[in-house]
């Protein structure tokens, strides 16, 4: 019950933060990526604010034995920098640049701009399914 509340609370605060930050406006995100044009630095402030708070959270995490509501931390342990990581990130950036949307703002926008957000999210889910179908180790 506590875990469920924590997950929902985290999502609600995340969605509210996205809405306040301006990152739910694809044109503004596109403006950040448009470094040769009319550059909009807002996303850099969003990143800065998020990194500041999250860095403090990691500082606390290193001093905890367990999270508040679970028996252990479940964190990514791999340190491998390979073609999957770089190729996947490069593709993600291309899609991000084309539509001005990444997964968080797209999903949050289902509550505010349903039709375009739903088209993007449906396509995103399809892309994820395609990845699973072509990647044997991802089918597990």
């Amino acid at each position, binding site marked *: 019950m506590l*875990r469920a509340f924590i*997950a929902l609370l985290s999502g609600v605060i995340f969605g509210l933060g996205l809405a306040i930050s301006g990152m739910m406006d694809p044109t503004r995100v596109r403006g950040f990526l448009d470094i*040769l044009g009319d550059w909009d630095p807002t*996303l850099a402030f969003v*990143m800065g604010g998020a990194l500041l708070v999250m860095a403090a959270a990691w500082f606390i995490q290193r001093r905890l034995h367990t999270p508040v509501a679970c028996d252990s931390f479940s964190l990514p342990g791999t340190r491998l920098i390979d073609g999957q990581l770089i190729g996947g990130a490069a593709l993600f950036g291309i899609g991000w640049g*084309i539509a001005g949307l990444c997964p968080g703002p797209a*999903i949050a926008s289902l509550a505010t701009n349903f039709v375009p957000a739903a088209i993007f999210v449906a396509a995103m889910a399809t892309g994820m399914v395609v*990845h699973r179908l072509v990647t044997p180790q991802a089918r597990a």
Partner: protein
Amino acid sequence: MITQWFPDAQPLQGLIGGMLIGLAGAIMLLGVGRIAGVSGMFARATAISRSGTPWPIAALFTLGLLVGAFAHLGAIGPVEATFPPSTSLLVAGGLIVGFGTRMGSGCTSGHGVCGMSRLSPRSLVATATFMASGMVTVAIVNALGGAW
């Protein structure tokens, strides 16, 4: 100063919103010991991914994103947004984002916020890569006359 050089920028809203996003990541990390990465949580919530985060946590987090945006509508006001002018841009962007975030194990939240603040080498490389490829993509689209 910033607003003088960049009249469209919203540095204060960006900073406040960003700190809330960081707080959300902190609650997930310190509360249940997991990374608040949206692409992974969404894949798990929709059962596209069948392992990792317990389903209720992923589903409630994903639902929460909508509730948070909806709360902004009620408590603060409309969320300003101009979407791409054509459905084909939304579909192409969505397909590539979906495939790429699974292949690269994360997006702006998991790698960009949670991983970078952990100083994870993987996340630093991933973030630099998707920022660069996003910038190149926008420059190419603009050069081809597709700016919007």
